């Protein structure tokens, strides 16, 4: 009896479930608003996106329930198989996939379409947790880091072949997992941050200016720490490394990035001012959100989204509907829900007794974080347009299901954390 209670809710983290459910409902309402057509106002109709989303939400409830029933140990054991299946699906999609919007990312199954890259996140996350946890007693070493990274690298490459850059980038967020487990240092994070800043600066200004400024900064650094013997050599190494990075940025920018990716970055940086062409999506998205003001225009009153000014409004740009119809208040509510979810997940991860559950928990948090920040950041114009869904809000069965599974597997671990996973 006691055991049953634990499984079916006693130790289930209801806060997380509540946030999850709230987000799903918000998503459903906003999808309805995004595609609302007064002529077909019925709430549930399979011909509409919100009708389908309703089915997906119900499905997710069932799947969540099923996850809670299955023994937590199962996921650990099955993770290599799951990972293998997702890899196979990623290969299959390259062969039989439907090409939508330039990405060969969907496998058609009947009237529905499966997006393997969404499930690849789950598979990779589980396997990574299993792999890293198996080494958790040892001091983190470079070899484990590389092998662990390889678990992610395979799906990244397969997804890039679609090519779905957005989904591929998601895997990089798992770097935070390596950080948490000690495989990457704080300096690495700082270094990454500096690289991103340098990258942006290089695109904005002439590279020679930047190298000049870097030289001055390094000289100042060397002077300030002149007591340390290592100061001068470090400064020189730092200078040379960053200068090389700066020089390579232009090359990478011009030759590795595709033109539409370059354009998206240029739009964000303000180098392209073309609200009717390259910047149309972003501009309309900002107009939608910005026009919501404090309290929004009211449910179903958003003209930007209702009248199709915003592209992909029920999937990647779903946040526009939130921003336009619910205003700053509604937008902040959603942002806070996500922040609450993320903090809650880290909390849950930290309270796990098993390393597997903890690492998995951080994996989930990282994936959610990346989607949350990149997606909303994209709609408000602080991140280049990257086509990834907003967890639980965006329309789409595959993403909703995979996000739900990610979350509820963690909740399952948490529910019987007192047992051995």
């Amino acid at each position, binding site marked *: 009896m006691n055991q049953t209670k634990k499984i079916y809710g006693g130790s289930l983290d209801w806060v997380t479930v509540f946030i999850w459910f709230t987000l799903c409902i918000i998503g459903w309402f906003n999808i309805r608003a995004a595609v609302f057509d007064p002529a077909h106002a019925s709430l549930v109709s399979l011909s509409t996106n919100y009708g389908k989303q309703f089915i997906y939400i119900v499905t997710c409830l069932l799947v969540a329930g099923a996850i809670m029933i299955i023994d937590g140990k199962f996921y650990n054991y099955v993770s290599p198989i799951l990972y293998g299946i997702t890899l196979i699906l990623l290969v299959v999609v390259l062969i039989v996939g439907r090409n939508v919007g330039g990405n060969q990312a969907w496998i058609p199954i009947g009237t529905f379409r499966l997006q393997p890259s969404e499930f690849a996140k789950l598979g990779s996350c589980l396997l990574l947790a299993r792999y890293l946890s198996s080494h958790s007693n040892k001091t983190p070493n470079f070899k484990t880091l590389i092998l662990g990274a390889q678990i992610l690298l395979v799906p990244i490459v397969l997804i890039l072949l679609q090519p779905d850059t957005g989904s591929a980038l998601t895997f990089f967020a798992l770097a935070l997992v390596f950080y948490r487990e000690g495989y990457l240092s704080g300096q690495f994070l700082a270094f990454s941050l500096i690289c991103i800043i340098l990258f942006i600066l290089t695109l904005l200004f002439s590279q020679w200016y930047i190298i000049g400024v870097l030289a001055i900064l390094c000289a100042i650094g060397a002077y300030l720490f002149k007591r340390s013997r290592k100061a001068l050599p470090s400064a020189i190494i730092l200078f040379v490394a960053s200068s090389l990075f700066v020089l390579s940025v232009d090359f990478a920018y011009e030759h590795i990035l595709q033109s539409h990716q370059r354009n998206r970055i240029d739009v964000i940086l303000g180098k392209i001012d073309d609200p009717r062409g390259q910047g149309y999506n972003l501009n309309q998205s900002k107009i939608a959100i910005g026009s919501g003001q404090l309290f929004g225009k009211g449910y179903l009153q958003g003209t930007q989204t209702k*009248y199709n000014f915003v592209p992909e409004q029920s999937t990647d740009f779903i946040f526009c509907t939130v921003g336009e119809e619910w205003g700053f208040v509604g937008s902040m509510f959603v942002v806070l829900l996500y922040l609450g979810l993320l903090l809650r997940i*880290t909390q849950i991860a930290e309270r796990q007794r098993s390393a597997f559950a903890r690492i998995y928990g951080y994996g989930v948090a990282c994936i959610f974080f990346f989607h949350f920040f990149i997606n909303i950041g994209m709609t408000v*114009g602080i991140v280049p347009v990257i086509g990834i869904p907003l967890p639980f809000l965006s329309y789409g069965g595959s993403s909703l299901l995979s996000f739900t599974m990610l979350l509820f597997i963690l909740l399952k671990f948490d529910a019987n954390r007192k047992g051995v996973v």
Partner: protein
Amino acid sequence: MNSFFERKYIIQGIFIAAALLLALRLFYLQIVDDSYLLSANNNVLRKVVVYPARGVILDRTGKILVQNEPVYDLMVTPREVKPFDTLALCELIGIDKEGFDKRFQKAVGFSPYRASIFEKQLSSQTYARLQEMLYQFRGFYVQNRTVRSYPDSVAAQFLGYINEVTEKDIERSNNFYRPGDYIGVSGVERAYEELLRGQRGVQNLMVDAFNRPKGHFMDGKYDTLAVAGEGLVSSLDLEMQKLAEKFMKNKRGSVVAIEPSTGEILAFVSTPSYDPNMMVGRERGNNYMKLLNDPNKPMFIRPIQAQYPPGSVFKVVSALVSQQAGMIEEHTRYNCPGGYSYGGGRGFMRCTHVHGTIDLPAAIQGSCNTYFGHVYARMLDQRKMKAAQAYGLWREAIMKFGIAQDLGVDLPNEKKGLLPTANFYTKRYGNDKWGSGFNISNSIGQGEVEITTLQMANIMAIVANRGFYYRPHLIKSIGEKKIVKPEFIEKLPVGVEQRYFEPVIEGMSRVVKYNANIRIPGIEMCGKTGTAQNPHGKHHSVFFAFAPRVNPKIAIAVFVENVGYGATYAAPIASMMVEKYLKDTISMSKAVQDRVLKESNLIVPEPPKEPVKETITMVKKTKSAEDNVTYISHSQRAILERWD
């Protein structure tokens, strides 16, 4: 729990920082920066002006003179235009690429953000085809409005026309009008512009990203309805107007018929005329230039703008004011030896006949110059005051008949005519020691006196009413409530007692009675012919009348330029009009009718501007009683066009 536990805070810190970044950005977009709301509204809102239907104008019997026909203007907002198949659009509306570029540049020049007319007045067929394709042409939309249409193509000068507003019009109206609006430019369209134009409505439509209308903004809360312009009922009688225009075809001149008991104008003809439908539609611009450059000046509103020496009709007025002044009476007789000598025999104003000794009715009947020369002399020289002062009194009395002043007809640009002041002569002669001999031709309506056909018809209305008139007007009532302007029901007395009219009417009655050509069976018409000499060609033909003598129903003046004597055209036309109006038949002999209606063009090219006024002597020629041509001589002066 392991040794890197504290890194949890770094990771949570990153999450919080990211959420904070988004929050700040949202705060900026949604709270700080207001421009996005504007952009969203610009995206979605289309202000569509709903043009009211201009007021319809009916004739006095309820038949349509002007109505409205729908047309469609293609509008463009340049900033909203996205690349599209220009060729397809060009084909649809029938223009070429060059024309497209020109129009587009013009639209950009007007405003990139505001809609302006790309192509005017598409037909409903073109519109139907265009409407299906319109979603392909972002930034374009169609606005419908109405244009004027004239089912009977009559009364062009009376009805006038409308035109797109000019910059000046917009300025003058305090921006009431907007570019592309129409405004009445002449005729009734202009005089009653404020009533006819109605009130514009605005629809705030919402459109989607493909520019397809999706409904009204806020359920039409900010929409305003267009209020149609007031309908007008004209005083014109469509049948009379059509008949008069038929008679006046191929002639230059004017016809004005007035209902004396109301001042309502029954017919208002100015020829050469034009089809008012020419001033509508896509060919309007070309037609307008054509009319403007036409040497026959079809846009000249002759009944109120062409000024002629009044001639005979002036004798009627002179007879009336002189009686009222007590200077003559019905039985006052003068001897007409064939002319009037004045200035101690130095001047001689010839008469058409040797009338012998005649009284006032006979003088009117015979149009005796001598008689009215004497009358004028009495009025000026024998009133125990200076001639200049007496002239002033005389002028004042004459002006009460509507001469040399605006009658206040409800049409713009009415001409006053002319009757010089005493000062004019004092200045001319250097002192005030002048008398009737100095401007004796005024006595018979020549000299400096000028009058319009409308004023002439109005004088007939005054005579018909025996002493008063109502302002002649063309609009009987306004709107559904049938409002009549107060100034049109104001009875205006001319300061001559009723009894003084009878001798004059008697004289006029005799004129018609003794002329078989214009007599109307069963109706006693009172009228007078006139013929004005034109030194540049054939004489002008004039006739004015009212009928019946008792309880008159119609007063009319007909003026035909350059066609010879009064009896040839003007009199038969007036007679037929009166008979048609009173008896709804025409009993005029077929021969005369055919002559009047004959197709040949009687329009003689207008003479070159104002010839020198230096001629002194004129020749006299006598024909029959109603074909009087007067020739007068006077020192230092000549007359360009005169009537007897």
